[in-house]
């Protein structure tokens, strides 16, 4: 039986030659994402804005227009009503009452319940996030992403050299910004789960970058005289098959989740799928060029030793 080979055994793709295009592209993406973040902004879910989310199932296909006019007439401020996953499943989102406290939010829920009456066969979800909690969730979310990026910087610094740490963090920031950009463009709901997705992307992208770096470090010791550009190309080509395989299996699993995993998880999965693509791209086209730009200390025997010692453990 012939085995499936997505990447031929001996590739010589000149990735480094394309770095100018790649870096410009990445710069455009990061700048565009930043601009979008401040102009169009993220579509924050109730986790971060405070507010009310109610998911109901109706008897037969829901009449969204009727619900919209009925609930809109209650004077509760901005209400979003949309079909969710199926025709008999409706998602109702209400902004937190202005200058209202937690009790005001609960009263809004009661009002909506009264108006819906028999139309709601089942209350599938009711979420009420008060202003106090939502503020803390925003803080914790930002903190989580920042801390994890910093910790990884420290870890890579400890395991490799500072150039590698810098390179990996630049590609991390690139991935996070690009993902935030896609959230802005598509106006996907940015919720607590999105923070989880972002952190997973951070982990995955790091994972990918580290593997390329690991090979670069190994080759640096092996080929002491090779031109750095050629060495980077060699390392990326050597790991290319693995990069594609792992991205492939991960994407297969995520695609299954996206299609079959239900409406609740859809945005979360979408963000991760996008992140896998961008993380794979950045480990090749961002992480490595950064090393070329800032240079690597060659033949630093101390660091080289450091890398090879802990290999015997862990069996």
């Amino acid at each position, binding site marked *: 039986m012939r*085995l*499936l080979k*997505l990447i031929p*055994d001996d590739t010589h793709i000149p990735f480094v030659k394309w770095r100018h295009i790649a870096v410009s592209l990445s710069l455009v993406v990061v700048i565009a994402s930043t601009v979008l973040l401040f102009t169009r902004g993220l579509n924050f879910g109730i986790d971060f804005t405070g507010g009310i989310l109610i998911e109901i199932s109706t008897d037969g296909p829901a009449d969204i227009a009727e619900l919209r006019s009925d609930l809109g007439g209650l004077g509760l401020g901005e209400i979003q009503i949309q079909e969710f996953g199926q025709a008999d499943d409706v998602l109702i989102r209400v902004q937190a009452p202005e200058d209202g406290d*937690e009790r005001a939010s*609960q009263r809004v829920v009661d009002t909506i*319940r009264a108006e819906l009456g028999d139309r709601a066969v*089942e209350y599938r*979800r*009711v*979420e*009420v*996030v*008060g202003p*106090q*909690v939502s503020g803390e969730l925003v803080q*914790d979310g930002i903190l*989580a992403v920042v*801390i*994890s990026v910093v*910790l*990884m910087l420290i*870890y*890579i610094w400890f*395991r490799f050299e500072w150039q590698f740490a810098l390179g990996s963090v630049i590609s991390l920031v690139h991935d996070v910004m690009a993902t935030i950009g896609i959230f802005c463009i598509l106006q996907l709901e940015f919720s*607590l*789960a999105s*923070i*989880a997705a972002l*952190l*997973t992307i951070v*982990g*995955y992208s790091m*994972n990918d970058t*580290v*593997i390329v770096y*690991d*090979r670069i470090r*190994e080759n640096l010791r092996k080929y002491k005289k090779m031109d750095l550009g050629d060495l980077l190309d060699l390392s990326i080509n050597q790991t290319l*098959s*693995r990069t594609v*395989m792992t991205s492939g*299996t*991960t*994407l*297969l*699993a*995520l*695609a*299954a*989740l996206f*299609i*079959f*995993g*239900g409406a*609740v998880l859809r945005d*979360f999965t979408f963000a991760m799928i996008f992140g896998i693509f961008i993380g794979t791209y950045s480990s090749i086209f961002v992480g490595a060029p950064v090393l070329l730009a800032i240079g690597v200390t060659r033949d630093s025997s101390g660091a080289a030793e450091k890398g090879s010692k802990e*290999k015997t453990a*862990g*069996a």
Partner: protein
Amino acid sequence: MLYFERWKVILICLLCFAGLAYSMPNFVPRDKLENVPGWLPNKQINLGLDLRGGSYMLLGLDTAGLEQSRLQDLVNEVRNTLRDARVPYTGLGIQGGMVAVSVTRAEDVETARKAIDGLATTVSGNMFSGVPERDLIVRATGQRIEVAVTEAAKLAQLQAAVEQSIEIVRRRIDELGTTEPVIQRQGADRILVQVPGLENPQQLKELLGRTARMNFRLVSNAMSAQQAIATRTVPAGTEILYSSDEPRVPYLVERRIMVGGDRLRDASPGFDQRTGEPVVNFRFDNIGGRQFGDVTRENVGRPFAIVLDNEVISAPRINEPITGGQGQISGSFTVQSATNLAILLRSGALPVDITILEERTVGPGLGADSIAAGEIAALIGATAVVVFMIASYGFFGVLAVAALALNVLMLFAILSVLQATLTLPGIAGIVLTIGMAVDANVLIYERIREETLQGKGPIQAIETGYNKALSSILDANITTLISAAILFQLGTGPVRGFAVTLAIGIITSVFTAYTVNRLMISVWLRRRRPKAIVL
């Protein structure tokens, strides 16, 4: 790398067997699990509220209100103390977070200060010193005396209020007859409540949102409530309270409490014998019964108000002395609201007002749908990964898939043993783990392929492959573990569940994809002694 000492082989096999054994209960229907003898693994994964349905509520204590009421009590204490000490004063009240009073005669200042100082008691100090501290600081400047509550006292008071509230919240929830509610302190002034599988989550909210401070007071006969409102003068010692039901009727009620709600011994819902309306029957304890008897005897013919959280539930006329210590509250109750009130009265009043800061309720239907969708996604995802791996690596792919299957079982086993909570994002974590777990195998196999291409023999190529891939595998997994750890620290509820499965999945995948897989290959090498490997 390919040689395993005997004890290592035994250890690895034991771990795999344990993983198998402890994951098994999850494949047995829950009701059949009771027949499993106790010495066998019988724990299933704990499903989160988003999967089994239930309510998550974060309750916040009104700390400002708590401090305010402490100061109000302090004002009363100071008033009594100065009266007892026969010290004339003016301007007693709360000012800038403390109680201030001006002593009229300068020669009284020292007497007054000492008397007020006598009010102070000690509280256990903060957690750093542990030394008992005074709860009050009394300062005299000129003829003005200021009394402040110390931080230690505030802390101790909050602590007591939280503990007491947890106890009362627990009593109220227990009345609902649900299984395994979680009620715990969160931070300094919050209570986390998780109640799985509720039929009626709305009732839980009604029970938790109320302070349920109840008392019985006389309705003032100095003037009518309408008169008081019209003239905007409220006689001393009275206040205007409104009825709880619509239309809201005002009552002029005496501030003095006839009998407090803490004197209630029991309350139960029932029906009025004449009208058939839902009512709440209650019984006082001995002291309360006597107090109630005395007051009703002295005030026959006057109406009294039953006040709950500063709203008048009803204001019946006292037709005759009520001495039996029993009574009936009628208002415009429904069966449900009568039941709720009875529960609230039985459980007692909260020491402080509570608000629901965050609520997440998931109905059982959505939970079941999520599990079903998660199962399908996991199965299809796993199948796709299996096909892809075998197509790419042939026999070695089969070994990787075996390691993957073992990985998922071990993940289930650890989740069951730790009784960690599986949430919907947690299922996503499992699916993601399935995709990423083969990474270690991919790294190793690609390395072996490379070494083979460079002309190494099977054993040497495999040996080098494992050796060189290890550092990458460790680095790659530790970085992911870091982000999972942070998610766990900072996340709540469902997101935390995602972090748990991701972290456990990483650890088990390194074990199965690296160690177990290596053992399998070493056995295969020794049995078959292949001349060349197909990769």
